[in-house]
C-alpha cells in the first residue's frame, strides 16, 4: 500500500513537473515574442497600418449614406474583414521571424513538449491581434459614427480572435516551410477558418442590432466549439507539422 501510494505520489509529482515545464516553455515563448516586438514594432505597426488603410478604403469606396454606415451587418462584416486580413499579416510575420535565422530549429531542439511552443506562439499572436483590435475599434467608431462599446461584441471579438489565431498559428507553421509562404497562408487559412468568421460576423451583428440572446447564443456556442476543436487539433498535430 505504501509502495502504491509512493508511486502514485511520484507519478503526480512527475505530472506536476511536466505541467510546470509546459507552462515555463510557453511563457518563455510569449516573453520572447513580446520583448522582440516591443523593440522592433515591425509586426504591430504593419498590422495596424494595414487595418487603418482598410478602414479608409471601405469608408471611401463604399460611399455609404449615414444610415447604411451604421447598419450592424455592414459594421460586423467590415470589422471582421479588417481583423482577418490584418491578422494574416501578423501570423505570417510571426512565423517568418522563427524561420529567418533558423530559430524554429532552436525552439524544436528544446527538451519541451512541442505543443508548448505552439501555445506560446498562439498566445503571442493573440495578444498582437487584440492590441490591433483595441486600437481599431475606437477609430472605426469615430469614422463610421457607430457605438462599438458593447460587452457582447467584445466577447465575440475575443472568441473569434482565439479561433482565428488557433488555426492560423498552426497553418502558419506549415506554410512557413514553403517558399511561397506569403501567398500560401491565406489560401490554406481562409477556407478552414470560414466557420469561425461566419459565426463571429453573425454574433457581432446580433449584438450590434440588439437581437435577443436566444438568436445570438447558437453563434456564440459555435465559436466556443470551434475554439476548443481548433486548439485541440493544433495540440495534437503541431509536432508532426513542424517535423521534417
Amino acid at each position, binding site marked *: 500500500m505504501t509502495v502504491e501510494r509512493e508511486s502514485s505520489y511520484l507519478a503526480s509529482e512527475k505530472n506536476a513537473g511536466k505541467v510546470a*515545464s509546459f507552462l*515555463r*516553455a510557453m*511563457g*518563455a*515563448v510569449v*516573453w*520572447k515574442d513580446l*520583448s*522582440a*516586438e516591443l*523593440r*522592433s514594432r515591425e509586426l504591430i505597426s504593419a498590422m495596424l497600418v494595414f487595418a487603418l488603410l482598410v478602414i479608409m478604403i471601405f469608408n471611401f469606396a463604399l460611399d455609404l449614406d449615414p444610415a447604411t454606415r451604421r447598419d450592424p451587418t455592414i459594421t460586423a462584416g467590415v470589422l471582421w474583414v479588417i481583423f482577418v486580413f490584418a491578422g494574416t499579416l501578423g501570423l505570417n510575420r510571426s512565423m517568418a*521571424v522563427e524561420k529567418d*535565422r*533558423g*530559430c524554429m*530549429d*532552436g*525552439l*524544436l*531542439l*528544446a*527538451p*519541451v*513538449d512541442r505543443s508548448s511552443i505552439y501555445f506560446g506562439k498562439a498566445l503571442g499572436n493573440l495578444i498582437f491581434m487584440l492590441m490591433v483590435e483595441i486600437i481599431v475599434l475606437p477609430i472605426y467608431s469615430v469614422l463610421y459614427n457607430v457605438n462599438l462599446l458593447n460587452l457582447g461584441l467584445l466577447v465575440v471579438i475575443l472568441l473569434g480572435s482565439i479561433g482565428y489565431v488557433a488555426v492560423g498559428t498552426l497553418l502558419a507553421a506549415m506554410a512557413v516551410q514553403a517558399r511561397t509562404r506569403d501567398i500560401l497562408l491565406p489560401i490554406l487559412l481562409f477556407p478552414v477558418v470560414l466557420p469561425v468568421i461566419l459565426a463571429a460576423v453573425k454574433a457581432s451583428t446580433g449584438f450590434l442590432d440588439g437581437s435577443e440572446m436566444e438568436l445570438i447564443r447558437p453563434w456564440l456556442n459555435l465559436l466556443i466549439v470551434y475554439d476548443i476543436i481548433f486548439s485541440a487539433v493544433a495540440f495534437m498535430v503541431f509536432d508532426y507539422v513542424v*517535423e*521534417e
Partner: protein
Amino acid sequence: MSQSEIFVLPSPRAPQLRSSLAMIKVRKLVKRFGLKTVLRGMDFSVERGEFVALLGPNGAGKTTFLRILASLSRPSMGGVNIAGYRLPDQAAAVRRRLGVVSHLPLLYGDLTSEENLRFYGRMYGVQDLPARVAEVLELVGLTPRRRDLVRTFSRGMQQRLAIGRAVLHDPDVMLFDEPHTGLDQDASAMLDTVLREVAARGRTVVMTSHDLARAADLASRFDVISRGVITASVHSDEIETNNLLAFYRQAIQSS
C-alpha cells in the same frame, strides 16, 4: 611518386566494436526524401569525450545525418541511440543532453545576447539562470556586448553566441554543422578557441566540415561520409596531418 599517392587507407571501423563506451550509436540508418535516398544504411559510433570530424563533399548527407542526430528529422529506417536514449521515441531526453550549432545562429536579432541566452535557458529549464548566462557569456567572450542586440553583431560574434546558446544547459554531446561557414580567418580562429574550450570539458563532439586543415587541428577522429555512408574512419594519432587530404580523396573515390 609523392607520399600522398602511396598513402594506404586505414580500414573503416565497425562502430559496434566500440559500443560499450559509445555516446552515439547509429545502426543501418536510412533516410529518404520521397524517392531520393540520402542516407543508405549508415553505421556510426562515437565514444564519450571523442571529437569526430565528419568530412564529405556537398550532398553527401552530412547535414541530414546531423539533423537526425539532433532529433530535427526522423529516420526512415535504422536505430539511433544517444547517451543511452533512443530516437525518435525518447527525443526529449536526447535533446536535454544535446547542444547543436549550425551555420545559422538560431538567435533572435531583436533580443540582446543576454536575452537570447535567458530565453533558451528557460526553454531548457537551466537552474540559477542569471549566473549561468554570465558564465557562458564570459566563455564565448561576449560579456562586454551582453546588452547589445544580436542583429548588430558580426557573423563571428553571432556564431560564438550560438555556441554559448548550445552549451548553456551543459550538454554531454555537441553537434556542429559547418560552424565556420561564412567566417573570416580571424573569426574562424576565435571560434576554434571556443570549440577547443567546449571539447576540453569532456564533451562528445561531432562536427561536419569541408575544411580539412581546420578539422585536423580540432578533431581526434576523422570520418568520411560519401553518398550516404561512412566510407572511412581514422584517428588523429593514426595519420599525419599532411596525409589527411589523400585519405579524404581515397575515401571519396572508393565510395
